[in-house]
């Protein structure tokens, strides 16, 4: 007998997993487009620390000379990305789930404690609800990045008809650079996300699939339970 705690609603789980292939396809087709004018780099003056992207990277993934293909994919799957994102956002707002994600007054301070804890520097965590302070900040940031992708994308897609939007992001070239930068940030988020999920373990990961986490109940509570176990009731409910 275990205590089952329902953590993620069904809608959140579906929208989360739908986003995974959609975002993968958007980033992939984005790479095919970016290659045709691959001007961004990390460095100063003539010194380049990291070119986006090295020739070997492009070659390994067979990226060169696929601009038309990349555009045709990007401008189709953009709809799915946008629709999924809008539904997710509306769900958060109307279900009240946003309360678990939006950072609160203490989040900034507490997120440092979470980081120190995760880096094995400090023991113990402040009490938390569904997400800890660092998660709240990260997940809120990722929603804002999604919105940023949508808007900078629109700005470079229709820079004349939506010239006000393009101007808002500092003009066409800035908007393109921002669109690219957010992509890199999303990829970094994804990498940290994966590492954190691995460290958090099976119970946490399973919750994004099944919706629930389980908790062992100690012997004391178990003996204190009524002779008629609760689970028989829930089982019949389920079968009904």
């Amino acid at each position, binding site marked *: *007998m*275990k*205590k*089952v*705690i*329902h*953590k993620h609603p069904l809608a959140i789980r579906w929208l989360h*997993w*739908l986003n*995974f*292939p959609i975002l993968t*396809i958007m980033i992939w087709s984005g790479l095919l*487009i*970016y290659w*045709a*004018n691959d*001007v961004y780099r990390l460095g100063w003056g003539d010194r380049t620390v990291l070119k986006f992207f090295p020739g070997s990277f492009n070659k390994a993934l067979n990226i060169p000379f696929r*601009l*038309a*293909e990349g*555009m*045709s*994919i990007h*401008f*189709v799957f953009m*709809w799915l990305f946008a629709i999924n994102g809008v539904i997710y956002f509306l769900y958060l707002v109307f279900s*009240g*789930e946003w309360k*678990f994600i939006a950072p609160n007054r203490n989040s900034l301070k507490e997120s440092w404690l979470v980081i120190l804890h995760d880096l094995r520097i400090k023991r113990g965590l402040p009490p938390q*609800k*569904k997400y800890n302070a660092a998660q709240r900040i990260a997940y809120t940031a990722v929603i804002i990045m999604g919105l940023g992708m949508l808007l900078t994308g629109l700005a470079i*897609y*229709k*820079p*004349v*008809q*939506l*010239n006000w939007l*393009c*101007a808002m992001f500092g*003009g*066409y*070239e800035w908007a*393109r650079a921002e669109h690219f930068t957010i992509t890199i940030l999303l990829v970094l988020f994804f990498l940290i996300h994966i590492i954190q999920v691995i460290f958090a373990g099976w119970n946490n990961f*399973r919750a994004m*699939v*099944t*919706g*629930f986490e*389980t908790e062992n*109940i100690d012997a004391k509570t178990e003996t204190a339970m009524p002779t008629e*176990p*609760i*689970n028989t009731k*829930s*089982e019949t409910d*389920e079968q009904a």
Partner: protein
Amino acid sequence: MNKREELLTEKQIRRRTFIAFTFLFLFLGSAILGWQWLHRQPTDHGAIQPLRKVLDANEFIFSSLFSKKHFAKTYSKDLPLPHPRVNGKIGLNSAFDTATWKLHLVKAPGDTLLIGIDEIKALPKTEIIFDFKCIEGWSQVTHWGGVRFSDFVKKYGLDEQSKMMFAGLSTPDDEYYVGIDTKSMMHPQTILCYEMNGKPLPLNQGYPLRLIIPVKYGIKHLKRIGTISFSNYRPPDYWYERGYDYYSGL
């Protein structure tokens, strides 16, 4: 708190876990199968057919944003400008006699008007300095001069033609050709261009006459115009045939 709790046996938990993961794998599996299915579809003008249909739907949706009052941002003449990049030579490689060049204006099948460059230069001149945008992703602020296409239409009595859906332009050797919706052609920033940086166009920029159409990507700015015609059907378009969006509007 929004957390529902219940007590379940190990067996029930395993069962629920199994079902949920089955759905996840079915979903991820069908995403992969769907992707593979997409790539098995026939192509339509170089683009995968279902994608091409959405691109055409995008045109329908986003052309509704189009307005003659939406302008490409323009820049002041005082700004130092980069040397305009030469990015396409298709249609410029054939032997070409600049002295005998005339614009072939097809008003109707069998009714072609030949127009010399001096007649075009006699029309009111419009200059534009704007951020030329290539479909590859780069852009450059460049300075062009010529006659507004809408002024040209007025002068040559093309009211009827300009109400048709498309204009088709091609180089004298017909190696390069574009199709453009007449709404974009009639935009006040669209010019039949004969000057770059205040001087006659260089040969590699389309001397004697090219199109400058800031509401489109560079692929539509045809150099060395040979023929202009009108149609209610999409005229052939070089890059459209190679998988790009027909509309390519900005």
